[in-house]
């Protein structure tokens, strides 16, 4: 047992790829499927950097209640709050914020509106209220928008953010384009007001088509909603350019070498498949992929092979023999599990060239306080 414990805590020969990130990156974005320890990993990275002397802020989407309490995040707030770090000396600090994506979209509207009146008209619009919560990736994009705003404020050396626990988390990569396309869509505006926009004569074919489409949308959604859509587009007039420009800036920052995406997974099949999907998606969008973290790795200790004949004899040796036979079988199961996990991790790494990987062993307790985050940090940064 002691030997096994020693093996577990031994420092690996190469430095953790996360250590470099936590020292130098300006933005770390954690992504991965649900239940893999993404929020916890993000918090541990932020705490490590803060205690290493950097002014750090962690933005989380949906932390577990006890972890939220540990970070002082009992309330959803759209502004960072300081986390008390008892006994902390030096220049570092840690702020935490639970992101209200909805509120962020509202703030963006307020920022780009010509005047408060325009902002109010948009914010009160029923179509806007639905759009901001349903268009794929919009909420996730708003997380990036908030991230960019905090980055611009230069209040922090490092921002760590975790993304929502769904595959659609990376839809934010498409969101600005979706949004721009939607807001800019001539065809869609034609659909809203075909009579005004389409003159006589040569566009009659299109006119017929848009009339049919309008009829369909009316039939599906009711005409009240359609009127609201029209109002929304009218209210939004003049805001497109600001939106587009901003989306471009957010994108440039995400692609910048001072940003790092960290893909978090557990060593089971579905989580690693999702990790491969995330890694591929980030590569396709030329986003800087920093490292892969695999949490909850099983490890088996070294035990000599015991042949089947000896095991059969053990089973006939009374209670102690049967117990030892069972312990051997449990060990076999653990070895199978550990080998299957390593095979799956290798298979994933084969598809993503040059990706640094950090493997964190299964910890005996859930992480729900600062001490737990520090313990986790020792594995992440060893």
């Amino acid at each position, binding site marked *: 047992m002691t030997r096994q414990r020693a093996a577990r805590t031994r420092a690996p020969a190469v430095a953790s790829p996360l250590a470099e990130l936590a020292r130098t990156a300006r933005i770390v974005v954690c992504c991965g499927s649900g239940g893999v320890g993404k929020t916890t990993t993000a918090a541990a990275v932020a705490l490590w950097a803060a205690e290493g002397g950097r002014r750090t802020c962690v933005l989380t989407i949906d932390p577990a209640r006890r972890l939220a309490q540990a970070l002082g995040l009992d309330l959803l707030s759209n502004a960072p709050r300081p986390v008390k770090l008892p006994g902390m000396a030096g220049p570092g600090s840690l702020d935490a914020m639970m992101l209200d994506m909805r509120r962020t979209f509202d703030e963006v509207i307020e920022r780009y509106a010509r005047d408060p009146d325009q902002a109010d008209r948009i914010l009160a619009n029923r179509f806007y209220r639905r759009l901001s919560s349903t268009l794929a990736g919009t909420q996730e994009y708003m997380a990036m928008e908030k991230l960019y705003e905090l980055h611009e404020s230069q209040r922090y050396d490092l921002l760590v953010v975790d993304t929502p626990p769904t595959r659609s988390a990376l839809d934010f990569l498409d969101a600005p384009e979706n949004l721009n396309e939607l807001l800019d869509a001539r065809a869609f505006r034609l659909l809203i007001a075909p009579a005004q926009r389409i003159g006589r004569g040569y566009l009659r074919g299109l006119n017929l088509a848009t009339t049919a489409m309008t009829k369909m949308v009316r039939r*599906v959604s009711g005409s009240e909603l359609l009127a609201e859509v029209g109002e929304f587009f009218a209210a939004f007039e003049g805001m497109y350019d600001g939106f587009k420009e901003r989306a471009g800036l957010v994108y440039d920052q995400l692609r910048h070498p001072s940003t790092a995406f960290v893909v978090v997974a557990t060593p089971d099949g579905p989580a690693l498949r999702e990790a491969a999907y995330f890694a591929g998606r980030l590569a396709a969008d030329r986003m800087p992929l920093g490292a892969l973290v695999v949490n909850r790795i099983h490890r088996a200790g*070294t*035990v000599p092979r015991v042949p089947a004949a*000896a095991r059969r004899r053990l089973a006939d040796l009374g209670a102690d023999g049967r117990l030892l036979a069972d312990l051997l079988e449990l060990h076999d199961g*653990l070895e199978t599990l550990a080998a299957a996990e390593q095979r799956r991790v290798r298979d994933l790494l084969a598809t993503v060239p040059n990706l640094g990987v950090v493997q964190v062993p299964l910890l*005996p307790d859930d992480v729900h306080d600062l001490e737990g985050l520090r313990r986790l940090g020792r594995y992440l940064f060893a």
Partner: protein
Amino acid sequence: MLEVLDRARLVVVTGKGGTGKTTVAAGLAVAAAGRGRRVLVAEVEGRQGLAGLFGRAELEHREVRVGDGVHALAVDPDESLREYLARYGFAPLARLLTWAHLNRFITAAAPGLGDVLLVGKVWEAATRELRPGSAAYDLVVLDAPPTGRVVPFLRAPETVAELARVGPIRSQADRVRALLDDPGLTAVALTCLPEELPVAETLEGVAALRRAGLPVAGVVANRVTGDRLGGRAGRLAALAGDPAPLAAAAAAAGADLDGAALGTLVGEARDRQRQVTRERRLLKELRGGLDGLPLVELPFLAGGVAGPDEVRALAGHLGPASAEARAPRRARRAAGAARG
């Protein structure tokens, strides 16, 4: 879960992300087929999670046979929109939408329409008749969105229909609701892991589904560590200090295990036992919160769930195959036809 598998027309499988929804949906489908029912298992999130479990590279928006008595389908929103429009006499419009890449705008203009189409497709399969009185499937198993999204998803037809008092949308929403709200026809099953957050989220999910009036039938706890040692685990602490009894047994059996090896074995068993104890505590908490709802445990499979073999193994835990169903399917169908 047995009763549900034999009776329901639609089983909706939801749960926190990462708790094995897709695996359990596949397992329930195979278990029901093993009990003689013709089953369709459908996924709606475009993840292609079902394909591998049935040994296929990919599934399409087309029902294909993937096993004995089991068909599978990956519902595609764009295809559903085309089908939907065609059904209500808008086929040329469907072509125009595709041509102009405008599907996204339509779904943005009528938020929830995407979900309406997905739910509608599932409803259509669950109620389809080959000829009057003869259903295409006895049971449809839906690999649904995760707990946080499942209520708005299932209620999408209703939400959109609020804007339409009459017409095809309204009447379809009413029919979908009639299927979903009937505990005799529909059963919602939640998947869970024996871990802290999933247990809490499952209990919240059950409450939310009940508030929405949806018939919750039970919870499947996935990947539960087997308690191999039982009461004998109590000896491990003493054996960690003094492994002499094990050393004696090893020597008597001719097993080459020194003190360090025995220490490793006992240490690993203790780690596992701590895990078992923690899982027991969490499952007890879960059971207590479920108020008598069935809770089925599925064992943790060390090699993972890679394909049809593991799905069959899990299906065995969800519901044993019936003797009648083990008889060749064709013979039964012939007998059924003779009876009818």
